[in-house]
């Protein structure tokens, strides 16, 4: 492991700290400052994209904890976001909760549902668990559309009242950005800490060797459920912010498609790495937008029937190709590339 030059840890507190050199402090502060002034310069379209990426990072970090750290594959992240979103909408529209009160409730309800769908992890792992969590992805949207359509609106879209914060109207992308980015940074901070704490070590221990973990005194099942709960609480938060972002809630936003994209994001980013998850989300979301931009001109080059197929097919095609290429050429994801860059910088001018 290579550490920044010139750091001499003389206490264990220093050794376990995350931000360790003055340069790292300045980068952190500068980064936060850029995020703070971003809406003043960026266009509405750009802010919409940033908001989407920020929301996706929250959800993907949750999945990163569950799949990347704990090694439990989940195909239900989209559905858990839906649980959060619908809880928020119903609490706001029918019970008159404010957005700020409904938000933690939405997180808790998503957490509980995630816990329930995590129960099969007691007995099964790997692909079988993926199938079990896939059931969440079918059951939850079905419940939303069919059980009480008078409350959930079935398949139709239901609007919410845009919340305000200290008199600031949050209906504009540039103003809601501050709320979203606040939560994103908070989640990154908490996740980073969780990963280096006792809990994070227990998660990785279970991922790498669950039998040894049990022998060494870890209650494996408890930690698996904890991981599921944390993961879906993040999803609940992301789902709630999604409602804020769209201003409405629709069951079509939380499909299996989304769940698989989240899994793709953390694979591209690098399983088990927190910056990696952020890279993966940004990479995939930007790629998605890029494909959306280029597919109409490409489609125009072809006759109508083929053009329409290209328009609808280019995005999943690109996504599939990217995942495939990453699995073959960089299975450790963008995080690994980032590590290589960091090491190069730290060892420079020596190449070894």
């Amino acid at each position: 492991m290579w550490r920044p030059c010139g750091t001499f840890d003389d206490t264990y507190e220093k050794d376990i700290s995350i931000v360790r050199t003055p340069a790292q402090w300045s980068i952190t502060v500068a980064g936060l400052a850029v995020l703070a002034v971003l809406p003043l310069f960026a266009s509405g379209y750009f802010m919409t994209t940033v908001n989407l990426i920020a929301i996706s990072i929250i959800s993907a970090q949750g999945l990163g904890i569950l799949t990347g750290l704990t090694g439990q594959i989940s195909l239900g992240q989209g559905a858990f976001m839906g649980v959060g979103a619908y809880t928020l909408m119903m609490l706001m529209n029918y019970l008159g909760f404010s957005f700020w009160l409904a938000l933690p409730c939405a997180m808790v309800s998503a957490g509980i549902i995630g816990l329930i769908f995590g129960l099969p992890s007691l007995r099964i792992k790997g692909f079988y668990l993926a199938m079990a969590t896939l059931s969440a992805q079918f059951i939850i949207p079905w419940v939303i559309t069919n059980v009480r359509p008078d409350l959930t609106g079935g398949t139709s879209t239901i609007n919410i009242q845009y919340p305000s914060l200290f008199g600031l109207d949050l209906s504009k992308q540039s103003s809601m950005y501050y709320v979203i980015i606040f939560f994103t940074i908070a989640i990154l901070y908490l996740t980073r800490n969780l990963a280096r704490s006792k809990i994070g070590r227990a998660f990785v221990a279970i991922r790498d060797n669950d039998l040894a973990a049990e022998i060494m005194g870890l209650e494996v099942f408890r930690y698996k459920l904890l991981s599921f709960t944390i993961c879906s609480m993040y999803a609940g938060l992301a789902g709630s912010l999604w409602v804020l972002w769209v201003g409405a809630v629709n069951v079509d936003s939380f499909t299996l498609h989304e769940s698989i994209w989240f899994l793709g994001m953390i694979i591209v980013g690098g399983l088990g790495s927190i910056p990696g998850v952020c890279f993966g989300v940004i990479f995939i979301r930007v790629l998605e937008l890029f494909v959306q931009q280029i597919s109409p001109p490409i489609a125009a080059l072809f006759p109508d029937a083929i053009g329409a197929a290209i328009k609808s097919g280019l995005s999943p095609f690109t996504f599939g190709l990217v995942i495939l290429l990453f699995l073959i050429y960089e299975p450790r994801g963008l995080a690994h590339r980032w590590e290589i860059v960091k090491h190069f910088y730290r060892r420079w001018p020596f190449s070894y």
Partner: protein
Amino acid sequence: MTAEDQTKLKVEDLNLSFGSVQALMDVSFEVNGDEILALIGPNGAGKTSLLNCVSGFYHAQRGRVSFEGHDISRFSPSKRAKLGISRTFQNIELYTGLTALDNLMAARHVYIKYGPVAGSFFFGKARREEVENRKVVEEIIDLLEMEEVRYRVVESLPYGLRKRVDMGRALALHPKLLLLDEPMAGMNVEEKEDMARFILDIHELWKIPIIIVEHDMGVVMDICHRVVVLDFGLKLAEGTPAEIKQNEKVIQAYLGKE
């Protein structure tokens, strides 16, 4: 001395079978005070099965395992770890994605009390506990001479060092009973000497009983106080190394004539 007379671990009439294969038949033995006990026997004799019954990985069909006077036969492995039974593995079952340091820290799990929320903020109590436990782990790193590999991911370590990390992880639990499953397997003479020295150091420093499963008779006869011989799930003999060396049955089943 009272400490020496005290029975730490008592295994009574243990029976374990997998289908029609009887792995252990009415095996009984005791570990007293702070002795080093060796379990020896030919391959498939049931040594590791017996160790697994003690650490809770297997539950015996009949018989009792008691530790410090309490019946722990039905306890889960993690509960036994909390009571102070710790072990190493024949095939090194480390957390391959973690650094050597984190492997040891992960074993401190039972001593670290803060919860997920405190862990997420990593402030005050959580940070303090991390540092306290880090000090304990550093002592073990010092004892086992693995300062160099502290920050190395276990996956990238050579076999001998992994074996040492495995030992370190077992020690980080601060066990009251240490089970070592073939600590010398696959090592060269030098590494074996190191390992034997570590075992004696630990015994000297912590005064804990140690059970060793081992095939290297030189090591067994040199460092162990008592030997239990297993063959096809049956206890063949028990005694001091000198007695075992002379035992006809053991010579026939396992040791062979010189």
